[in-house]
């Protein structure tokens, strides 16, 4: 069984294809969506979206955003997204620097979220480098 997977960034549609399962880095934990999943909406943390189709799997790096899951489709709306193989050290450094800045200047109520985001980026960078 397959369903539709779409990855969209503000500037363009990055992927639109059939998939059997989609792994999503949700803000409250990773999840895998399969066809006929209940309607679900989650915010993403920085991480990898993995799309499995016909035994192959492709990973996309997303810097955050949200995912909309319906029984027929998964739509990932990411602010920044590229295929895993295209992730560069400079890109990660830039995102980490931006997250650091955000964490430093964050107010009382947003500091925890900003720090969480920074540590997510660092974990991910280590994971991708290794």
């Amino acid at each position, binding site marked *: 069984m397959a369903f539709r997977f*779409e990855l*969209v*960034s*503000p*500037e*363009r*549609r990055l992927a639109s294809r059939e998939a059997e399962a989609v792994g999503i880095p*949700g*803000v*409250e934990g990773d999840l895998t969506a399969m066809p006929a999943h*209940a*309607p*679900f*909406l*989650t*915010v993403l943390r920085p991480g990898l979206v993995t799309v499995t189709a016909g035994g192959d799997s492709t990973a996309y790096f997303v810097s955050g*955003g*949200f995912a*909309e899951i*319906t029984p027929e489709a998964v*739509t990932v*709306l990411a*602010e920044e997204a590229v295929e895993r193989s295209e992730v560069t050290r400079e890109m990660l450094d830039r995102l980490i620097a931006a997250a650091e800045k955000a964490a430093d200047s964050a*107010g009382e109520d947003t500091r925890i979220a900003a720090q969480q985001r920074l540590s997510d980026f660092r974990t991910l960078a280590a994971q991708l480098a290794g």
Partner: protein
Amino acid sequence: MPSLKDLKIRIESVKSTRKITSAMKMVAAAKLRRAQEAAEAARPYAERMEAVLANLARGAAGSETAPRLLKGTGRDDTHLLIVATAERGLCGGFNSSIVRLAKAHAARLVAEGKTVKILTVGRKGREQLRREWGRHLVHHVDLAGVRTVGYAHAADIAREVLARFDAGEFDVATLFFSEFRSVLSQIPQARQLIPASFDEAAGADAPNYEYEPDEEAILADLLPRSVATQIFRALLENAASEQGARMAAMDNATRNAGEMINKLTIQYNRSRQAAITKELIEIISGAEAL
């Protein structure tokens, strides 16, 4: 009566002007195509975002704890007008029509006793607003070195706007830009950004989602992004409108130059013939006198 030489110089100068305007027209046409493609490509994201938000906003509409970006500050005293125009001129009435709409809006607000603050994006809008509304300009975003607007630019503008909102500098934000309909028609628009307003119909048929985290947390996360998305869309529409308007203006200019060249050429030929005839008469009457 200008001399033959003067006429010749003028014809040459109009011809080179025509060359420039027709080149600008072709450049604008090529850029327009790219701008339209960019606007097209950005549509899926904006539409999904809008649908999801409209759905969430309906649920949170009556809530006491709804984010301030949705329910507003509870006041309506200070308005921020974000006026997005082009960096360059020579594009017909494109910049002026946006500025005119913004000025009318600002004048109405002032007449109602409200405070108006203006944030300009693009040099042309700032120049036109400076004289009358100079005191109200609070910030300017320069996109002069930018060849194609990216989401990052919109995100920067959104950050600036949101920081000012968080600091309590204004209650309502309205965005002014020009919507691209066709090469011949670009319509200046005003859209309210803060508090967020949604089309009633958008997202009405959405299924009953489960949310993670809860609806209000998602809403609080998405609303700032939505501000950036809407600014991005406005910038893309503006880019397409600007090139469309420039194309139409340059097409007109090229045609006018052509007409002028024809007129000057006729004048040149007439004067040349008149001069020849005069010389002939002089020679003939000279010969007859002998």
